[in-house]
């Protein structure tokens, strides 16, 4: 009798184990199927379980961690590609317009007997348009280079107070020429951040150039902690769309006669991001404020 009960219990135990085994086997088989499915398609999908068996779960978690990493690399590559494509699509109008105008003036030069003064004027305009195109092209190349990560940044400890002063003295003449009243608030003590000094200088140059072109009357530059603020007054401030400011080729007016391609800000934003910093724009108290925050050594 005892023997039978023992045998019965054993059989039940065996059956339970067998069922468990089958379920886990099933789970693993489906995992395999799912994995081979998602391996070849562009998907966010992660693996899931049906049993929550501990070993299976831990296997899934490892694989999912790997999928997550792959995904991240993929997005990084894709972002570069789409940004570039977008830049090229957007630039086509900007390339075509000055080119068409230059061609028009050339036609007039060829067609008619013009007095020397008018000839000189037209050649001057053509030269201006070609210069525009040149700036546009080199900006585009620079943007492409930066976004593809072909520039290697040399991140080091930098006294950004000095970099900021340098950039300001470089821009000084132009700011004065445009009649800006400038307030500068930079501490005398060194402010050390982690960044590439050349890249930071480029960022500041681009921002200040933007101020010269679009700002007016008053500029305020302030350095507090690891934050640089460049605030200026501007005409038509309500027309400026802060949210689109850093997008490729955003310009508040559509005039292509000035030399601003709208790429300067995009380059500044990208360079700052590559230094693990942050560049944002906001409108406060009738001022357009650009804010750079750079990482400090911990």
């Amino acid at each position: 009798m005892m023997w039978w009960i023992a045998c019965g219990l054993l059989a039940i135990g065996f059956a339970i184990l067998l069922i468990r085994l089958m379920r886990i086997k099933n789970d693993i088989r489906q995992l395999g199927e799912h994995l081979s499915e998602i391996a070849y398609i562009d998907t966010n999908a992660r693996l899931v379980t049906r049993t929550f068996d501990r070993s299976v779960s831990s296997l899934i978690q490892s694989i999912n961690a790997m999928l997550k990493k792959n995904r991240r690399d993929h997005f990084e590559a894709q972002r570069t590609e789409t940004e570039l494509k977008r830049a090229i699509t957007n630039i086509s109008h900007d390339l075509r317009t000055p080119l068409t105008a230059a061609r028009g003036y050339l036609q007039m030069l060829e067609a008619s007997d013009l007095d020397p003064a008018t000839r000189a004027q037209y050649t001057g305009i053509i030269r201006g348009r070609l210069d525009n195109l040149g700036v546009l092209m080199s900006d585009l190349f620079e943007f492409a280079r930066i976004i593809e990560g072909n520039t290697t940044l040399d991140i080091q400890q930098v006294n950004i107070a000095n970099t900021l002063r340098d950039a300001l003295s470089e821009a000084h003449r132009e700011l004065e020429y445009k009649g800006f009243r400038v307030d500068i608030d930079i501490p005398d003590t060194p402010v050390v951040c982690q960044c590439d000094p050349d890249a930071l200088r480029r960022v500041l140059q681009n921002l200040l150039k933007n101020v010269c072109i679009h700002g007016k009357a008053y500029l305020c530059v302030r350095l507090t902690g690891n934050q640089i603020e460049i605030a200026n007054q501007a005409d038509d401030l309500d027309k400026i769309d802060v949210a689109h400011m850093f997008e490729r080729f955003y310009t508040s007016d559509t005039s292509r006669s000035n030399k601003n391609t709208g790429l300067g800000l995009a380059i500044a934003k990208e360079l700052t991001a590559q230094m693990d910093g942050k560049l944002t724009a906001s409108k406060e108290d009738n001022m357009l404020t650009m804010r750079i925050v750079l990482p400090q050594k911990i």
Partner: protein
Amino acid sequence: MTVLQTKNLTKSYGGKVAVDNVSLKIEQGDIFGLIGQNGAGKTTFMRMITSMSRPDSGQIELFGATTPAKLTAARTRTGSVIETPALFQNLTAEQNLEYYRLQRGITEKNRVQEVLGIVQLTDTGKKKFKNFSLGMKQRLGLAVAILGHPDFLILDEPTNGLDPTGIVEMRDLIKRLSQEGITMLISSHILTELAQVANKYAIIHHGRLIKTLTEAELHEECKRALAITVDDTAKAATVLETTLNITNYKQVSQNELRVYTYLDDPAEVSFQLSQAGVRVASIQVVGDSLEDYYTKMIGGTKS
């Protein structure tokens, strides 16, 4: 890659056509805005995509799948929030998500906190779903929808009933999700609400698709300008610059220039161009405000 393509999708309720021959295509990475008034057929369209309702006729292709069995598999890659999310009234945000985590076999326990973080509901603590505000309910619905890492997200009026800050937050959230590789179909009855997020738009009115356009096209449509079609753009450009002193213009295609000034005097522009020997095929003022544009679109079709 095409995520969703519908061909002549049609559905009627009680003799009334809710969705009328809608054919559209959503590419991977799109944030596709479906714009229409209440009752235009947006929700019905979305319900058919998620199999909550069956189309009378027409075809749905989701991730390349068209057969019922494959469509079911493809739908597992889709998340959706349509109408009010059906969640447990007496559970907290975390408990609701934990339920769905187990139900879907997601092994990562921290995923619940992760999505709560994404939709910014981490600090709701012991508050039960039934006591949530509409905005919080919407966000929790969204959290459930993204729990399983979908590739395609369908959101019905995600900004409905939100205050202005809520709308801005929702927009940011949508953009962030898009950057993480989620293709999106979003409906709204207000064009301007989606104007800053979507990259493609379809305007639906009385069940019919009246217009699809890209972000750039919408932008160009809504920028007031003189659209001038001429035979010789190069010559026209010099006339604009020298005679009329216009620098604010753009060449948009082979034969078309857009001038952003002189909007009140197209006759003068036309006259000067003709005087200089440029043949003007057409000249007209184009561009409306977003809302005007939308009203014109839906007003311009017979109901």
